[in-house]
């Protein structure tokens, strides 16, 4: 009697498991699936593995959707585990390429070379503008320049009606309230890039090291970009740096930036960031496109928005397994296609401007 009951229970569980495993599906078409990309040579390994930067994760998702539509049966599994973990996974041979907020450092380079048995390439594939978002009642279209932003984020400028801010915002009524700085309490490539910008654009008036942790010494920390966004939204007279997508979604106003060339404040927009990217200089040799970030942050191009996070795909120039090389090349070709680039703006990223796309295309086609 009891054995029958037990057998029935086992049968029920098995039947349930079978039913459950039969009804799942990867097919999410119907809500307007991604368009096919053109000019891509498909083939090679079916499922590529990659990991790294969370900042470019949503861009990669858009690329992968287009890639799956374009190359039947091929996909990329991207784990957003952070840039450092991504580089470690790549040099440790766990993944086929890495997503990273910074190019390979001199200490990572030999490891990457050993893993690839060829030169690793840093390809800046995804650009995400960083917004200086603020919450000051009665003030819209705030303008800042590099030196003033640096002083705000290192605590030299303490109130909103400080002469330094007032000089950049003539005709606006600035309150006398103290400035509350919101920063990322967790390690982040966004923080690193933003502090690099502050140091570069202020000729080191910022005076703090540009590390992944915020060193400004003022304000309140919050976890993740979402945390800083929420903190800025909920705290009056506060200011913080976040990826543009977060500011857009929270409908926070963002400061216009007067770049190193002077002139009028430049609003955060796709076109304005594109101007800065087109003018950027490359320090990488040959097909390696490591960027000179100073040339981005200190851009003098009129109308160029200078604060952008450049995130790289770190790949091998020649893979030990040619199948992997073919698939990586196909994926990156897809990523550069207009169809994949079109998915970027909704995530707050900037499509790669045409002039820079040519350089990337040359590098990508050299991968084998």
């Amino acid at each position, binding site marked *: 009697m009891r054995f029958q009951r*037990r057998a029935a229970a086992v049968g029920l569980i098995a039947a349930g498991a079978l039913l459950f495993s039969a009804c799942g599906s990867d097919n999410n078409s119907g*809500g307007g699936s991604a368009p096919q990309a053109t000019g891509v040579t498909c083939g090679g390994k079916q499922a590529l593995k990659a990991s790294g930067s969370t900042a470019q994760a949503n861009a990669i998702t858009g690329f992968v*959707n287009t890639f799956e539509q374009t190359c039947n049966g091929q996909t990329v*599994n991207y784990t957003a585990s952070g840039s450092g973990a991504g580089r470690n996974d790549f040099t440790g041979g766990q993944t086929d390429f890495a997503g990273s907020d910074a190019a390979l450092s001199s200490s990572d380079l030999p490891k990457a070379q050993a893993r690839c048995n060829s030169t690793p390439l840093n390809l800046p594939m995804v650009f995400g503008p960083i917004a200086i978002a603020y919450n000051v009642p009665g003030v819209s279209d705030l303008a800042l320049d590099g030196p003033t932003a640096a002083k705000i984020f290192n605590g030299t400028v303490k109130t909103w009606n400080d002469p330094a801010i007032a000089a950049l915002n003539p005709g606006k009524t600035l309150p006398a309230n103290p400035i509350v700085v919101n920063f990322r309490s967790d390690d982040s490539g966004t923080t690193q890039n933003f502090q690099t910008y502050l140091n570069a654009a202020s000729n080191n008036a910022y005076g703090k090291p540009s590390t992944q942790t915020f060193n400004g010494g003022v304000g309140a920390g919050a976890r993740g970009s979402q945390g800083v966004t929420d903190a800025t939204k909920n705290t009056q007279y506060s200011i913080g740096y976040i990826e543009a997508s977060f500011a857009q979604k929270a409908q926070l106003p963002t400061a216009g930036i007067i770049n190193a060339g002077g002139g009028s404040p430049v609003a955060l927009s796709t076109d304005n960031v594109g101007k800065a990217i087109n003018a950027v200089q490359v320090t990488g040799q040959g097909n390696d496109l490591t960027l000179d970030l100073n040339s981005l942050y200190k851009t003098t191009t009129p109308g160029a928005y200078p604060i952008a996070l450049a995130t790289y795909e770190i790949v091998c120039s020649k893979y030990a397994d040619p199948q992997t090389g073919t698939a990586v090349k196909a994926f990156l070709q897809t990523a550069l296609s207009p169809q994949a680039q079109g998915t970027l703006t909704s995530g707050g990223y900037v499509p790669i401007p045409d002039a820079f796309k040519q350089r990337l295309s040359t590098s990508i086609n050299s991968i084998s």
Partner: protein
Amino acid sequence: MSAALDAPERPAASEAFRAVSTARKVKNQLATVLVTLAFVIAVIPLVWLLVSVLIKGFPAIVSVDWWTKSLSGVTPDQARGGVYHAIVGTLVQALIAGIIAVPVGIFAAVYLVEYGRGRLARITSFMVDILSGVPSIVAALFIFALFISIGGLSQSGFLVGLALVLLMLPVVIRNTEEMLRLVPDELREASYALGIPKWKTILRIVLPTALSGTVTGVMLAFARVMGETAPVLVLVGYARAINFDPFEGNQASLPLLIYTELSTNPSAAGQLRIWGGALTLILIVMVFQLAASLISRYSAISK
């Protein structure tokens, strides 16, 4: 028994009932209030958590797609697709852990209760205590060091299962041990008296008697490991498509899905997925706990 029967039937020396003093009444009231207060304080966060997860996650889980589709091909800001791939991963990884940890755990408990004497038993018992205090990230890093750094394997759902074994083992061993100790010695002695060997006594008398409690403990151990986040962060990559194969490729799981959406996706759809994923995880754990109590009710030995 006999002491109660032999008790002298004469009145107690002093008065049996006295009026309760005010001081004692006050103390009683005070204690009642404090205990009730402690209970309420303990329950508030639990109810709060459940209610907020339910309210924020419910809109996500009511769609059929949520339970039958993966997130393959869905852009981050689209409120489409589901978490089927993550449910599959969570169950597969927990199952791997269970297949290894449950037999080992039960045998270890049988050893400790029925055979274990002397040094080996003491060491085993001590080690189980230590193992139950190991944080999940340490278990994950141990597996990472052993199998990936030294062994040269690549990340997979199977390795997550192995890390979960380390977390599941002490729970299974300790619980089974308790259950086996609850089996009255009279049953064992009666069995021996009938000339039945020890192994058969354990197999046919001790284990069936303790079965319901053991199964409950195993189910609770499953429920405990399914929400573990550290092993999936270290030992496996995230995938948006369904992967039944724990030995090859990336495999999603509910904690990993929640973490991924949390760290990358600020859109409304992402927020919905985070809460929906949390609610789904709670529901699955609840199903396991419910199954545990049902099994213990229906498989209990009738007296």
